[in-house]
């Protein structure tokens, strides 16, 4: 299987092309929004205003393309890498900042947002996505659950169990593997013998698709088809989005310790953002003025988000023992009093 692609590296569009110019423009806005958030978040982290932050530079199209394929009412079940997908699903920038600031104020998302919190223990979210997907059927809902995992995570047992459960129960779930070449320092070739992760779908009796993860049109298209199949009761799909982790694993990581400085140089030419812009320009619907206006708008959104996040109340020690059970236990109550006194 060769990765499906609709936008060439120079921005040339395949014919037929799956997205309307309006959709492509919307996708571009979200991709730029994601890029700007990521770059500025990393800066905030360097200034000590975020805790550990996992950047996703180079993977914006894989995340945003998949997220845009969801309808309102669908669910996102992300790993730590998917801030871009969460933003595209409606998580506000200020909430995302507070989340990565590790501030309790950021960890309660709005009640109407069907986005689960970021998951740290690798691959554990996948099983939850299957359960969330199935839960709709019992409630007369036709929602779909979209979940993400990395190439490294595909080695975990939960990856297998989730695909098997989803297949057996024909759960309306779509799983996107962002094959970004690295699991911290371990390259994909040390992770698996067959580098085509989508091939594994056959083993579960479900469709597997491989797509150029740096091509927003391709990711959006295959995810949209998978979501439609899921909603129609035709079961789950495994999508492998081939992409590249351009930056460090997290803000604490130094890739210089395990890969050469020019590793992945070829991927810079495949940058999802500039490729998309070239496609829009080819359509005649984008120019420097629009670009400038968009960048200014997003810069203001980010600045406002920082102001909002900075205005959040300071975390208080007793919050540590709150929200363990619905009703506080006597032990927790005693601890709460101790912590409140500081």
């Amino acid at each position, binding site marked *: 299987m060769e990765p499906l692609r609709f936008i060439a590296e120079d921005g040339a569009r395949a014919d037929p092309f799956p997205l309307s110019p309006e959709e492509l423009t919307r996708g571009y806005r979200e991709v730029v929004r994601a890029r700007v958030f990521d770059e500025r978040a990393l800066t905030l982290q360097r200034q000590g205003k975020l805790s550990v932050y996992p950047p996703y530079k180079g993977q914006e199209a894989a995340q945003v393309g998949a997220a845009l394929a969801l309808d309102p009412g669908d*669910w996102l*079940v992300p790993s730590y890498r998917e801030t871009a997908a969460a933003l595209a699903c409606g998580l506000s920038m200020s909430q995302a900042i507070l989340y990565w600031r590790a501030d*309790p104020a950021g*960890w*309660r*998302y709005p*009640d109407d947002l069907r986005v*689960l*919190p970021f998951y740290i*223990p690798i691959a*554990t979210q*996948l*099983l*939850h*996505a*299957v*359960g*969330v*997907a*199935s*839960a*709709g059927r*019992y*409630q007369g809902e036709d929602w779909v*659950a979209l979940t993400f995992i990395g190439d490294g995570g595909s080695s975990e*047992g*939960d990856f297998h*169990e*989730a695909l*098997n*459960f989803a297949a*057996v129960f024909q759960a309306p779930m779509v799983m996107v593997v962002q094959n970004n070449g690295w699991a911290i320092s371990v390259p994909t070739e040390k992770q698996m013998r067959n580098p085509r992760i989508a091939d594994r779908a056959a083993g579960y009796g479900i469709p597997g698709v491989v797509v150029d993860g740096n091509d927003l049109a391709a990711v959006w298209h295959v995810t949209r088809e998978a979501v439609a199949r899921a909603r129609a009761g035709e079961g789950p799909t495994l999508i492998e989005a081939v992409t590249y982790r351009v930056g460090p694993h997290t803000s604490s990581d130094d890739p210089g310790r395990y890969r050469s400085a020019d590793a992945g140089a070829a991927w810079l030419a495949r940058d999802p953002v500039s490729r998309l812009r070239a496609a829009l320009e080819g359509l005649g619907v984008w120019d420097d003025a629009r670009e400038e206006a968009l960048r200014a708008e997003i810069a203001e959104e980010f600045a406002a988000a920082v102001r909002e996040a900075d205005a959040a109340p300071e975390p208080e020690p007793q919050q540590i023992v*709150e*929200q*363990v*059970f*619905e009703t506080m*236990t*006597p*032990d*927790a109550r005693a601890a709460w009093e101790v912590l409140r006194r500081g």
Partner: protein
Amino acid sequence: MADAPDTRPMTLVQAVNDALDVALSQDPRVLLFGEDVGMGGVFRVSDGLQGKHGEARVFDTPLAEAGIVGYGIGLALAGMRPVAEIQFAGFLYPALDQVLSHLGRYRHRTRGRFTVPMVIRAPYGGGVHTPEQHADSPEAVLTQAPGVKVVIPSDPMRAKGLLLAAIEDPDPVFFLEAIKLYRSVKAEVPSGHYTLELGRARVARAGDAATLVTYGGMVEVCLKAAEVAAREGVELEVIDLETLAPFDAATVMASVEKTGRAVVVYEARKIGGFGAEVAARIAEETVWSLQAPVLRVAGWDAPYPPFSAIEHHYRPDARRVLEAVRKVLAA
């Protein structure tokens, strides 16, 4: 006849089945699933429930414990009330990642936005000559998971009321059922719906000479020991914890303050077992009322033996409990 209590004699298996039936009947969000659950389960706990409530609500899963627990967490996050069965507590270990990493953390990490009202049932413990691995008692591991309740009933009537309370609880509950008790006792169980409060220990037998603190399959062992002691004029108080987490310290301390002597009885491996927590709490909170050191009677520091002929030397019995009682009374 209107005054006749509406009860029926039931084994613990039947009482759990009855509780599940009531829960499935009254709440459409309740789902029951696990390995072989559809045909009734290896202990026949879910007998007849698939036929009555349908294959969508009572169903078999693939044979994967992490999958069972993780799938259930997802169902609970999105509005269902899953009741998962792990076939034996000794086969829970593949699911421990889901239990320790997620089950009890969701309310905390989303500050109450998402909760996991899920019950995980598992038969546990020894005494019936099961093969290797089948007799484990991993309750202490589970009490190390914050945000998870751990309930272990000791008789059919209490099992039904506690299980219904667990299913209706807004937080995740582990519900361990002593295999030894599954069919060994029959007791009157009220029909229909009733609940017993979680988080409360109970005085299973009142006495003043010493306190036996125990739970689950060891309650009958301690009651037997208390009967024997009573014949010699020694009245032992037996506290049945029922809920290990959250721990009802008040009931335990009230008893120990009264008797001044405590023996903690559990069948899991002694070191790091839940009885160690009980003993530590007694030391922290009421050491001044103690007339003797707190003793523990528990499984030996070895794997639960798969050797049928000598298995009964592992699991505490009334004789070992009484030996410890004699020691604390002599002190």
